[in-house]
């Protein structure tokens, strides 16, 4: 019955149905398995993750991989400052991050070869080098499939939206995009989740009871029919989600105490990090937060100093400290990356100079979960133009990231034509991360 086997023996229908929800896109196949859901490997510590994407490609030399003693044409005007971890120094414009360097690990000398934004992002935000014949899913889609959240919560939320989609896993693993960033001191509503159209809870309940009494047409064949029985269950679950205090409260950052909110900045990125913290606390598995504007071909230093770094500093430091304060850092992996680094050589396109795309050398951060903070893994050469010794591949970081969540990156999925595709194609777990 349409159960035709594909390239590797799994039917496409099955392949489509295997697994679970993206966002609130809980599918029937997934729904039936909900009872088994949420199983996490014993040796893993993290049960959720926050992915901070920095599209545009942040300059590694001006953030977490400074070369204070490097040649003047690459060094730039920023100074390095000490952090709370002896021997680890970062940019002077990241003072708050310097104060919590024990909570994260810096990868330096990460290297690849894709210097265009879309390709670089595809690579770094999915952990797989782009390949025209496979559309790889982003991290959040994989995690929401492997570790689905409870039924009344979305598994994967993107604030405000994500650069990458669910790829071959299909729309059901796409994030629930908030489409807006929360603003400090203002109520925040999310489409579909908050009661819309001025309808009150009481009205919803009355309508729901009318619906239940009217929705009887298929009772006779419903139990035997996947479509109908699934719709029936979803009807109840949707009602639960819409009326769920837990869901609504998860998005309501106004419920945090003033003291807690003050850990974060007031700008939209910081508030997004605050929302990410709340969502994870409520049981959402994966949250993507995005801060763009890193494509600093011109006026690199002014842009970083006056705008990007202060925002990044406040938001990320708030995130690490907020998670720690709520006791969530141990169970939440935080992964921060752009798509590439920037040229060590400062260009002369503007008076002040800028830096161009540079995939050969970049840096990333990871913290929380089982990650041993306060480390630097990998090293770039004297002018930050490439890895000093062995390069760290983005795939290795991807494999390690999944490892923090107990997800085996070798695990294979079937694409729509039944082609088996492993979660991360090439890559091995960097054990130093956990020592």
């Amino acid at each position: 019955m349409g159960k035709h086997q594909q390239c590797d023996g799994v039917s496409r229908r099955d392949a489509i149905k295997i697994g679970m929800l993206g966002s609130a896109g809980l599918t029937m196949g997934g729904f039936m398995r909900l009872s088994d859901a949420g199983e996490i490997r014993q040796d893993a510590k993290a049960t959720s993750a926050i992915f901070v994407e920095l599209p545009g490609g942040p300059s590694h030399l001006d953030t977490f991989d400074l070369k204070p003693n490097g040649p003047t044409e690459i060094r730039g005007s920023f100074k390095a400052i000490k952090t709370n971890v002896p021997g680890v120094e970062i940019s002077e414009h990241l003072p708050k991050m310097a104060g919590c360097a024990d909570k994260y690990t810096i990868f330096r000398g990460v290297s690849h070869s894709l210097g265009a934004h879309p390709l670089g992002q595809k690579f770094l935000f999915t952990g797989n080098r782009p390949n025209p014949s496979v559309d790889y899913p982003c991290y959040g889609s994989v995690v929401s499939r492997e570790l689905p959240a409870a039924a009344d919560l979305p598994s994967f939320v993107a604030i405000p939206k994500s650069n990458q989609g669910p790829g071959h896993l299909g729309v059901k693993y796409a994030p629930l995009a908030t489409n807006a960033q929360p603003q400090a001191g203002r109520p925040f509503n999310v489409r579909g989740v908050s009661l819309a159209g001025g309808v009150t809870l009481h009205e919803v309940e009355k309508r729901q009871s009318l619906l239940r009494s009217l929705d009887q047409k298929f009772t006779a064949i419903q139990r035997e029919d996947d479509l109908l029985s699934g719709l029936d269950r979803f009807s109840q679950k949707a009602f639960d989600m819409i009326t769920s205090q837990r869901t609504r409260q998860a998005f309501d950052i106004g419920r945090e105490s003033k003291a807690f909110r003050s850990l974060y900045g007031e700008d939209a990125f910081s508030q997004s990090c605050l929302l990410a913290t709340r969502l994870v606390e409520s049981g959402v598995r994966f949250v993507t937060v995005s801060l763009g504007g890193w494509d600093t071909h011109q006026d690199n230093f002014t842009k970083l100093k006056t705008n990007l770094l202060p925002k990044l500093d406040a938001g990320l430091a708030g995130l690490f400290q907020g998670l720690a304060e709520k006791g969530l850092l141990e169970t939440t992996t935080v992964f921060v990356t752009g798509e590439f680094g920037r040229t060590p050589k400062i260009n002369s396109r503007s008076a002040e100079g800028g830096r161009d795309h540079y995939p050969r050398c970049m840096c990333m951060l990871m913290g929380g979960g089982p990650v041993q903070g306060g480390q630097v893994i990998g090293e770039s050469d004297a002018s930050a133009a490439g890895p000093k010794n062995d390069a760290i591949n983005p795939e290795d970081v991807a494999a390690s990231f999944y490892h923090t969540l107990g997800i085996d990156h070798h695990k294979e999925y079937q694409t729509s034509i039944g082609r088996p595709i492993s979660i991360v194609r090439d890559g091995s777990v960097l054990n130093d991360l956990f020592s």
Partner: protein
Amino acid sequence: MKINRIVYLLFSICLLVASHGWLPVAVDGESPHEGLQPSVEKRFAQPTDEVPDFQRHVTPLLGRLGCNGRACHGSFQGQGGFQLSLFGYDFASDHAAMLADGSGRVDLEEPLESLILVKPTDEDLHEGGQRYETGSWQYNLLQRWVAGGAVATGKPVRLEKLEVLPAEIILSEVNDPSQIELKVIAHWEDGSREDVTPLSRFQVNNTSIADVTPEGIVQPTQVSGDTHLVAFYDNAVAPIPVMRAVSTARGVEPVNAIEMAPTEVDSLVFQKLNKLGIRQSEVTNDVTFLRRVSLDISGTLPSPDEIRRFIANQNVDKRRHKIDQLLESKAYSAWWTTFFCDLTGNNSQQLRNLGISQDMASQQWYQWIRDKIERNIPYDEMVAGIAVATSRQPQETYLDYCNRMSELSRDRQSGGLASAQSMPYYWMRREFQDQETRAISFAHAFMGIRIQCAQCHKHPFDQWSQDDFQQFSKFFTGVSVSRTQGGSKARKEQVKQIFNDLGIDTKKVKGGQLQKALTKAVRDGQTIPFIELNVHPPRMDLKPEDRRDKTKRGKVHESAVLLGSQPLDLTEYSDVRQPVMNWLRQADNPYFAKALVNRVWAHYFGIGIVEPADDLNRANPPSNGPLLDHLAEGFVENGYDLKWLHREITNSRTYQIDWAANETNADDRRNFSRSLPRRLPAEVVFDAAKQAASSHSANQAFRNQIAGRAISIPGTNLNYGNRKGAPSSAFAMQVFGRSERLNSCDCDRSDETSLIQTVYLQNDRDIHALLGDRAGWVAEITKSQQQQAVSPADKNRMREVQKQLDRLNRMVKAKEERGDVKRAEQLRQQRRKQLAKLQELKKQGEQKKEPRVQLSPEQLVNQAYLRTLSRFPTDAEKAECIKYMSEQNSISSGLRGVLWALINTKEFVVNH
């Protein structure tokens, strides 16, 4: 069937007697097995002098043993330093791998030390464990091959046919189902025949009905239903049906009376159902039929008035007439244009940087197809307009082309390319430029097959080898997308000149900036140098390292092979896509018509005759072969007339049956014995919700009001054409999974359900906005129920008098200003008269004023049901709704609640 089995038994006994070597065996004079070479299992059971053949014996044996599987040596990295081609059939590379220096797989000097002998016996530790024992027939076979010099296969011998016996298994008729042994016979091109059962691989598509052992013993379950068992050997894939009848009614009385079948479609469906003892459900009632057929053909709900009329219509042919009427509607052409835009991949994001905006290109694509659908142009003609499309019209110069396109991209209202002979954008999509992607996409769209598996290895479910794929993909090397025609000097100059005239220096202005400059130039009324689709000889793709080598440049393919066909001389064609189109149009083409009729069938039934509908391959046979053949042949005979196909399907009883199951067909999903509820497609869900909530007149006009409908979004820019702030279908399209038109897979469109879809219908602002629309039905009813109104005629009269008054006022003022006291007084008198008249009219109006016809709660509920579920409510449903409405504090909230509940029933969101 029983007789066959006895023959096999006898045959096996004979084989035992003649166990050594190849003896022609005759069971009796008429035996079909005369001249049949016994199996290798027999021939190599004992040491023998025979040397096996690499293609016929060694490679299939490695396949049967699992050596070339993905987890083993078929892995692209190989395994243990030894790599075989995945799923075999790359004889040269497999042979080379075995004899490679230092691999030790084959040791010609010390044959018995060959790793292909000692590894699989696990004598030398084998990660894959023991595959056979020393001295077994498998061992002997491989050993004899090595000893015989490990000879390779030259040109592969063609396997003409792979015969599987028995040719059909009806489990319910077999006395001892545990004894069903399969026999597989290879018929080679050279006339020889061999029993290849032990060298074949087997699979059952639905193992809940039966399974099969690696040796070819069928193991039935007690589950009834039907499926196929598939045997694989060499490049052949041979399916046989396996079924167990559902009811014992078979034989007692005919389950479905074939002579009573209203149409040929029904007769063919009945024949299959009778084999299974399944009785088809009853014909469904008029309202269910009307809703189903309206949604399927036109993507639009019937209006309440239409439903009432249809019920009242006593004409016995009213269903046929309704189908004809629907096929003439605008919504039909819009909805089926969307179908063909899905099929051909009208993806806006793929149409960037063509010189024309991507949305416009998508719209032109859509309009071009819509024009064909509206005029019911034959399908083959429409496909030819795409498959051998060119940018330029016949006789058109490049400059004329640029002028025409520049003109087009300024004129949003024009029909675009609709009347053009061909639609080239199919070939101009960004990610469809290399020959392999094109071959994959073309085969998927117009042949309904997935040859991408053969891009890297032998197709596991079809006969295609990598070589077949490469040969086929050569047909797609004859067109490319450029502005400079691949660099002819004259053209380069011409383009340069146009750029000069525009004042654009292409050395300085590049990439995104160039696009911007061109967009601006076009908008300013200038002609820009357009990119076009160039047709040229089939260029050989050079390896990156050869691209600078002038001696290697400019080479062309001289021949290519259509799938499953003979080599073609490409030098005879000025456009090498032409022979592909010619081949598709041949009446005996195995794919072209079948792929389309199967997809259209799947559209109407939620499941294809071949399912998945875009996966026509040998291992995935149709659930009803004669039915598929009938439709495909009829389609070709009727000149690829799409409306013929729609009528042939929808006028059948099989299409018009009920979803309610009887005692025989509850478990059947693949034989069209009952109607399967299907979730409405994304576009239709949104449009249906919108229609349900729209005013009376808008609801009635819906089927012929295409603008703003989700079924008429041209490309994949979901916001295209939306007014800012107006409720848009964009979000719903994502939630319900409109086709992404990207991946050469019909699954780009989702028919799944998800929690977020239900959340959308229950609580999204779109739905609340539709229900609360001031121009919508709830507002309309609320107004008419509450207000009493002055008659329009009286209103008009009053308006006239008021106008007079205003005029008089102005005149009085003017006269007073001029000091014309006398005239002013006259006018004042006139004014008093008019004022008195107005007051009188108002008084009369008040007296005449009658309440508008008020709808009773019962009538309102009827309306709500007809708008949403396209039927009248039952008494119980009516009572529930009236009770709910009476508890609400206003008519509007009562109606909104009822409409909301109805839109959220399963009955609304499924087509049933």
